[in-house]
């Protein structure tokens, strides 16, 4: 992996600033959330814009595609969480429960619930199957803005600006709070589901053990002080990938913690959003108004 080179292709999203970039469930399509209130669906490999979804009142902060690719859920500064129909582009549901900007949204495994985290410190679970406008449950344990939510088959993770990661375990009925002191801007589960990767605003990405809460590793070298920077693991959980405020994407070896790649984004000051393909060794990153598609170059490795 060390010698893997990446080729990039830059695409103008024409959405103002791309607030978030996400792959869909199978990695064939990607979503870009723009500051121009639009949500765009792209085929990144064919460099094609497939559809634009208009319906948000203000900037779109985050989005995710459903497990069956039929629906999208997005959230934004207008305090709304919107459920879209992919093919028609219609808004199926609009959830207006949050009291402030909704920072992050995610589907559950079966895409029956949308979970959103907002600046109003709450995480709300919206029932997509019924016609209820009220959330099923409000998780209000946060003491500061919830910056990122992540969902697995039986748990909900919420990363908060108060420096705490809260893991709501539905199976056991437990809430685990891990205090990392520094504001967290991104929480992701590793592919194996055993680790929680958090981007902290002290220029550190931390990996903690899910079950014990033990700090497994810290990844430094990038810059992360002010903005919401995403981080994740690659498709095979061998590396930790993060954006940075210096215009580069950093790769660390998960085990070592050493920087393996530093991918420069030309003309970009901050790379804030990244998404890794679920199976292939490719990823997409967004910086300001453009997004990059990175693919493994077809050079043979020397090893």
């Amino acid at each position, binding site marked *: 992996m060390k010698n893997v080179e990446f080729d990039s292709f830059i695409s103008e999203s024409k959405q103002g600033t791309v607030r978030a970039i996400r792959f869909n469930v199978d990695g064939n399509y990607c979503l870009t959330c723009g500051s121009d209130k639009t949500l765009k669906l792209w085929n990144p490999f064919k460099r094609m814009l497939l559809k634009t979804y208009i319906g948000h009142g203000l900037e779109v902060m985050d989005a995710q595609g459903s497990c069956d690719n039929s629906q999208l859920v997005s959230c934004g500064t207008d305090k709304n969480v919107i459920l879209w129909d992919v093919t028609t582009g219609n808004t199926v549901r609009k959830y207006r429960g949050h009291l402030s900007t909704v920072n992050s949204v995610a589907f559950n495994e079966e895409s029956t619930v949308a979970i959103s985290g907002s600046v109003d410190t*709450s995480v709300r679970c919206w029932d997509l199957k019924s016609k209820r406008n009220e*959330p099923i449950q*409000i998780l209000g344990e946060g003491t500061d803005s919830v910056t990122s939510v992540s969902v697995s088959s039986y748990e909900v993770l919420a990363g908060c600006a108060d420096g705490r990661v809260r893991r709501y375990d539905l199976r056991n009925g437990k809430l685990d709070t891990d205090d990392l002191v520094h504001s967290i801007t991104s929480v992701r589960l590793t592919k194996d589901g055993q680790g929680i990767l958090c981007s902290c605003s002290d220029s550190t990405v931390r990996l903690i053990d899910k079950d014990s809460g033990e700090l497994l590793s810290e990844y430094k070298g990038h810059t992360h002080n002010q903005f919401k920077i995403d981080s994740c693991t690659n498709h095979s959980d061998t590396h930790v990938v993060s954006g940075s405020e210096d215009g580069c994407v950093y790769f660390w070896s998960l085990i070592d913690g050493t920087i393996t790649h530093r991918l420069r984004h030309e003309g970009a000051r901050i790379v804030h959003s990244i998404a890794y393909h679920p199976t292939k060794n490719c990823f997409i990153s967004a910086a300001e108004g453009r997004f990059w598609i990175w693919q493994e170059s077809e050079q043979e490795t020397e090893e």
Partner: protein
Amino acid sequence: MEDFFEGARYGKEIYEPNDEDVPRKKRKLSRREEREKERQLFHGAFKGGFSVGHFGTVGSKEGFQPKTFKSSRKDQNHSERIRQTVEDFIDSEDEEAFGSSSCRIRMKKSYEKEKEVKRVPHTERQLLAFSVEKLLAPQSNTVGERLLQSLGWKPGQGIGKKISLQRKNPLLSSVASNQTTISPEDIQAIITKFKEDTFGLGYQGLEKPSFSSVAPSSQNHVFGTLEKGKKIRISGQAFGVGMDEDNEDMDVYSKEDLSQYDFELAPAKPDIRKKEMFSTKLEDRFVLASKPWLFQKYYKPPDVPKDFKPHLEEVEVKQDTISSEGLVGRKERFNLLKKGNVGLEWEEKEVDAKERPKEEDFLQKLFSSRFVSKGTDQTATGIEKETELPTSLSKARRGGRITVDWFPDKLLCTRFNVPCPYLSVPEKKTERKTSLPLFTALALAKEKKQQQASGVESFPAPQEAPPEREPERELPKTEEADLVTAQFHERPPIDLFKAIFADSESEDEVSTLTQPSITETAELGSWTVESKVGGPYENMTLVPAIEEKKDVGKGQDKAYSEEMKKETIDENLPAITEKPIFTKTFSKQMHKVEEEDHALIEKGKMKDKKELAETSKSKVKSDELRRLEILERLKEFDDLEEVNDLRKVVTSESEDEWVEIDRSDKKKKKQKKRKKEKKKKY
């Protein structure tokens, strides 16, 4: 009658028609009249010749004589000029509409104005309006005015014989005033004051005192002297009145003066002499103070060290845009601070030992990022220290992992396809929304708090039933009861409806418990009940079939729900839960019934469910019991509309009589329409 008449007759008989008589026909028209009529009808048509507009009278004796043309250009005699009027051109039939006969007679403008001036003002308002009008209206004297003026009258003077000056002003008594005459005063218009208020007749409000009026003198006083020689003055309603013969008409008993009342709630002050109040001299208004005015607290300036060189150092204060951190305590700095004298009062106060750490914490936060102790070296090393601190302190704060119990919503568990972690323990913090008005919600919350504090179970007694039962079978029923999401203050929980309307279903549920979930929907008027039958996680949600009702109260609900949301975010306030009022007992009943039925089935006596329904004693019992129960419970909801409907349902003896409860407006409208249609048909 005519037969008997013997004398001579003159004239025609007066025709007095009786009511019974048919009105007689008009008399036969004379020839002339006939012609006239004809002419009118045909306008001279069908006769040929020049007859347009003049009924064929041209050239005839009676008719129109066309005038020969005369040039008037040379004609200077304008007085003889032919003046043509409308009457020359119109037909006789149009005379009614356009001729002189239809003209109204009105006054000439010069005469017209007099009418308006004659408006006499009666009320003050009218007078005001009148005077304003007078000011604004263009001056034009009336005929009468002009006549008078020509006779020597001036506006404002009265009319009549001249009177002597003395008579007018009786005070004058000179000879000259006796002899000279002057015109009398003009009569003033009598202005009556209309009563525009609702006070009693003759009511006069309190007179507001004015400082200019010399009030004391108008009052009656009695003067006297005390033993020591002090003069006193007693004033009041009853004082100083008796012997005043001159002023007999003085109304003694009704003097109400606002000056006698206090205008402010203030302790009795020594009378400030008015002179003092209004005098212009400074000495009169101010008095030397008794106490010297000192500053309450005087703080010394900080001790400046001798070698102090003032220079500006820029210390970067960390400001995270995301979090509000930056005020993390820095112990070392604080300790340094403590060494130096800061001289704040509150620090020196003696505080309880318990409170101290909190204060220190607070101090930490307050000073750490803002102040630099004088003792520290103000060079780059200071900044370095700053960056070092966070790591050391982060260790202090990081408490590792904290695990607490969390109760996911049952629906959430279902959606995640995860078995619900807790079974018997009821939810304490449910953040489910109900559209309760704010105040009842708060009241509920208070109640809950109180109940929790006192150690009483927050749910009614029947709650005891759940832990007794086996989790397998009985669980769905209790959960069902728990999950009632009906509006608390409006409708009885869904179980009630279910119990009434879904009789046969209960049997189905029992038998299909082990089967995978089947959704059944039962329509209850405008509400559809979605119930997941079977499975361990039965859910019941009331889904309104008609959206109208929602929209009606939407604005209100939103406001309230917004408030509610704010409430729930506050962690101190316990969240709102629905109270399953009496469903526990119900389910208990139902369970007993089912158990009995099961026993019967097991015995093998009953094969068909229908047989069971018809013949089982337990079923009969349960029916009756159920109905009784329902009636009892309905007493609680006496005020609701639905109650009456339900009562009808419950008290009906056979199933055929069951009344359809329809709550939908649409249905009613439809019914009305149908009724109307039926009526129309007949």
